[in-house]
């Protein structure tokens, strides 16, 4: 299986055909179901492509998955049920939007933690800075003399 997957990856990488995604015969007649199918397929990774959703990919596997999603939706499953089914079959790897759990804690929380830590550092430095409150160093006698010179020449 892995070997075949690797071969497929190599094949896709070397040919990189233009993406053709959804074919006319796949489209559901019910526009509401079709819209849900599109939303779902945009969140599923095409397993044999390089960073494409199954909605964008024209690989045969992507087509199979698109048809599968539509079949399940027609059978009346909810979006969550369809996603669960795909994950049970292909693993978390199929999700372009990883689920929030202990392993993805840093992934989802990281950027906002950095924002928070950054704000905190700035806030603390400010408080420390205002405590010292020495605005600018006083001018040396030399500099004061030059400043006086400049001011005088302006007058």
């Amino acid at each position, binding site marked *: 299986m892995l070997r075949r997957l690797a071969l497929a990856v190599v094949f896709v990488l070397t040919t990189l055909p233009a993406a053709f995604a959804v074919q006319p015969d796949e489209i559901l007649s019910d526009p509401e179901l079709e819209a849900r199918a599109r939303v779902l397929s*945009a969140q599923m990774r095409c397993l044999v492509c390089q*960073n494409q959703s199954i909605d964008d990919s024209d690989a045969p596997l992507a087509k199979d998955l698109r048809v599968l999603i539509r079949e399940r939706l027609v059978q009346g499953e909810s979006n969550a049920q369809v996603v669960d089914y795909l994950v049970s079959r292909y693993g978390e790897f199929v999700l*372009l939007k990883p689920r929030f759990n202990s392993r*993805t804690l840093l992934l989802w929380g990281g*950027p*906002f933690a*950095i924002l928070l830590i*950054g704000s905190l550092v700035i806030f603390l430095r400010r408080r420390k800075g205002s405590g010292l409150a020495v605005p600018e160093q006083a001018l040396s006698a030399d500099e004061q003399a030059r400043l006086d010179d400049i001011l005088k020449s302006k007058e």
Partner: protein
Amino acid sequence: MIPEIGQFALILAFVTAIYQFSVPMYGAWRGDGRLMAVAPAAALLQFGLIALSFACLTMSYIASDFSVQNVFQNSHSDKPLIYKISGVWGNHEGSMLLWVMVLALFGSAVAAFGGNLPPSLKARVIAVQGSISIAFLSFILLTSNPFNRLDPAPIEGQGLNPILQDPALAIHPPLLYCGYVGLSIAFSFAVAALIEGKVDAAWARWVRPWTLAAWMCLTAGIMLGSWWAYYELGWGGWWFWDPVENASFMPWLIATALLHSAIVVEKRNALKVWTILLAILAFSLSLVGTFLVRSGVLTSVHAFAVDPARGVYVLGILCVFIGGALALYAWRAPTIKTGGLFAPISREGALVVNNLLLTAACAAVFIGTLYPLVLESITGDKISVGPPYFNLTFGPLILPLLLLVPIGPLMSWKRADMWAAAQRLWAAALIAIVVGVAAMAWQWRGPWLAPFGAALGAWLIAASVQEMVARTKFTSVPFNVAWARLKGLPGAAWGMMIAHAGVGVMVIGVVGITAWKQEIVTVMKPGDVMQVGSRSVTFLGESPISGPNYSADRGRFSISSGGVEVSEIWSEKRVFKPSNQPTTEVGIEPFIDGDLYVVLGDRAPDNARTIRFYFHPLVWMIWLGTALMFLGGCCSLFDRRYRVGAPKKAKTPIIQPAE
């Protein structure tokens, strides 16, 4: 013979780089003026040698010398001349050669134009630049030699990947590299300043134009790549959060932050330590980007093992430079005196917020790009991180920044009244609300975020215009006075207003293509008509075509609006000769309200074709917006005070009405 000259020049360049690094660095340490003075000559010589080497490789490509392995693997005698030339950097070895050539170009630019730099700073900057050259020249010579020969020489080459045979993609890599590598100057200045232990307004004034130039190249390079993806990949996506895209976007975000924080160093002598860190980070992310793209570690973990030497080597370079610079930073940064205190609500404070949000946004891209890799190597779990992740993390971090962009420039230095600044923008706010409401009325079915995005774009544009009006007092003084003031505005002020307006224009374009895109997939026979938005498109039929190195089926379409034919477009399915690789050329007709985008699909029974129609509203605003950002950079770059040479006094005093 020519490839050997190239190879030899490359080796000489490597030796020169060692000289360029060691002698001036030692001279600066000892305070020996004669040793420091060799730096410019060494930098110019190094550039000359690499340029010679690059020219040799280019000549081998133009002459289709297939005895050179690199030419054999990436070229074909039937290819049009422009793609023979662009083929030079359309592969790993050649693109690394271009990388070091741009690096040496920037180094020699400092050598040639850095006349007003203090000698020790100049020597150190050029020396650090030389050390980067050493690393990458040795990488090329040891692991990726473009001049390897084949014996016997093959009769014909294997050809360049057809989807890379495209004008935009021919100049995309050189621009991107100018951006990536241009940031090395900021890095070298930062490292040199850390060694000197001195950062002041003059330092910021020298660093800023280089960063700006690099930022502009990066902006243009990313835009070209995005544009190429839009018309070449066949479904009108313009940004995919692909790891390779992210690799160029991360340095862009940090360079943007650096541009803004360098203003504070220059004007207020504050945020110095932070600016140094940003300069180091910007180039570090360029190196990370180079590593990610060049090692192949991202496409799959296994690709890394295909050529471990290259990946490990670049990783080594990465560790030495990033680790070394950060260690130097940790050691020396505390000795740099901070100056210029400011209240939280002030122009400085606003720029700190700008930096914080840009850095956090960059962190989101960084984490999202590398997380799957790290998680897999630690736990073995395979996960995917795709566009939905970036929309949910990058989006909330960048939106507040965009909202605050117009307010920042209105705040005064040191201490400001935010409410007063915001009040001055009432007209822009009003326009934004009107646009938002209009968007909601026009496309009430679309996502709720879309009218908000349109309002945000309008807010950015209107505020920039309002800022210009306010600065020139167009509404309160006679026209000729206002005109004189307009002409007298510094380039940097123009640059800021144009670039900020450009961001607004781009935001509206992004909203258009993301939220209001229309898509129709259908099967058509010649003569069939399809309604796409307000226009109808007729499939006229298809005919075979033969190009210089491909054959194609061309489907022709006629577009009419209100019963009148407005134009005819075509879309092709091409098969390229050497590889039999199929590609698709889409047909795009730009209208003022958006692009009509037609893609010829597969054959269907009965002489019919699967055809895809898209309508991408306002997509041109994405390209216009980025072009405006670039233009803003130009204006700022040509500001008088960044001209080469020490800041001089104006010969005649500029007469201006009192503020």
